[in-house]
């Protein structure tokens, strides 16, 4: 207003009006053009992210299905190659000619058949335990992991130990199973690929988070390797681990320890999410 009083009323006012109006309209048009282009960029970027997420989920799902099929094939092979012939052999000992044999031969046949059936029962028990360990269902995650690690130590291949520091309250059975499978898969990978001499597992709770840490002194992978393997076609077990942890909305982190002497895998699950996940 002061500016207007200083200037010649007519020319000043016209200039102010002209330049002011042009300026405002230019700003308006500039703003609208910026918004249009920026918004399209944002949406395209979000579309790309979404596509990447979908591709990743598809890969995980395929890996999960392939693993399931492999497990079924393994069980089928165990039953066909081991249990099948054993039972067939037992049947041979107990065929129709059995009644024509002398008593001693009959007794020997019965004894042999009984041995074979005992072996078959043990074999089927082992297959069943590997599918669903009864210790996990009846006594919980701590006992099941202890059992697993005792079996590994007992085989003499390496020193395996575990320690649960804070597991007073059990997780839900389905969540315990998922965590057990993840631990099983990690341990299998260590046994197969790392040539480690020891594995040590620790469990802690911090706030509402449940932590499991696995240490070993063999050849391991870092988080970068894990992410690379996940994106590739190999690393079926790792993809399976990721799928399982996604169900619990948990995280896994691979790293080499600060002292550079051993590798560490940390699994983190938020306990408060258990009820929310169940509701979903």
């Amino acid at each position: 207003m002061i500016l207007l009083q200083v200037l010649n009323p007519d020319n000043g006012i016209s200039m102010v009006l002209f330049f002011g109006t042009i300026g405002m309209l230019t700003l308006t048009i500039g703003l609208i053009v910026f918004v249009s282009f920026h918004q399209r960029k944002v949406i395209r970027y979000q579309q790309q992210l979404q596509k990447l997420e979908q591709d990743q989920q598809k890969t995980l799902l395929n890996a999960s299905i392939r693993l399931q099929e492999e497990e079924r094939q393994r069980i089928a092979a165990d039953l066909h190659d081991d249990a099948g012939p054993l039972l067939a052999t037992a049947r041979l000992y107990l065929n129709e000619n059995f009644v024509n044999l002398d008593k001693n031969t009959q007794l020997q046949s019965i004894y042999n058949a009984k041995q074979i059936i005992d072996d078959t029962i043990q074999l089927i028990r082992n297959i069943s335990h590997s599918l669903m360990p009864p210790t996990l269902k009846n006594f919980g995650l701590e006992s099941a992991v202890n059992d697993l690690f005792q079996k590994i130590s007992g085989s003499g291949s390496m020193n395996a130990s575990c320690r649960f520091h804070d597991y007073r309250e059990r997780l839900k059975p389905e969540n315990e199973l998922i965590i057990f499978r993840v631990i099983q898969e990690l341990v299998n990978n260590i046994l197969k690929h790392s040539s480690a001499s020891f594995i040590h597992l620790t469990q802690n709770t911090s706030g509402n988070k449940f932590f499991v840490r696995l240490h070993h002194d063999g050849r391991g992978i870092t988080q970068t390797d894990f992410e690379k393997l996940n994106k590739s076609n190999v690393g079926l077990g790792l993809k399976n681990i990721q799928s399982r942890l996604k169900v619990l909305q948990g995280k896994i982190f691979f790293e080499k320890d600060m002292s550079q002497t051993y590798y560490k895998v940390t699994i983190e699950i938020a306990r408060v999410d258990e009820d929310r996940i169940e509701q979903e």
Partner: protein
Amino acid sequence: MLLGKLIFLSYLLCITFFLVFCVRRPKRELYIIFIYIIYSLVFDLVRTSVSNVKFAFLISSLFTIGELSICSYYFYLIIHSPVLKRIILAVSCIALVIITVILIRSEKKGFDSFPASLESVTFILYSIIYFFEQINRPQQIFIYSSPNFWIVLGIMVYMSGTLFLFIIANNLSENELNKYWIINNISNLITNLSFSIAFFQNRNASRVSLYHKSFNSNDSLEKL
């Protein structure tokens, strides 16, 4: 005269487009704009036929208050963020109170310069808020396929174009004001055309926004 006829035709175009494209697919915000168009048309007709200065001032003042109320409500409907909605509500109430007080205490002659300028600034602010929200929460890849974009564009062009005219209106003589009033007429024409495009865009309103659901949904292969 020609410009006056063009403006009148643009009002008719808006009304026609609304009746053809929007009545079957009712959206509350478009009804609000339709009410605003009728309101503007009625007041423009009354204003042009009034010669008494005080009565003309009263007409302009009532128009300003009504326009502020209707368009503020429109922006309140189209903004999604609760925080921004509250800001719009608060600013509108304050502006309405200020404008009403000024109009009551004014000399009731000339042009309601300050209230009109304040209203222009308010709606430019609301338009910026709308575009800001569109950047942060994009609903569609082509923002110009949304009717609301064209309506806000029309309002912003009108308010930007007439802001300086309204600011200096009381410093102009009656002849000068009539000479420069062409800016208001052209802005009005562009706004009405923009509203017509908005109503035309509404013909696609039955199709779901291509990306609205996908950005907000939790659909994923995990659910399979």
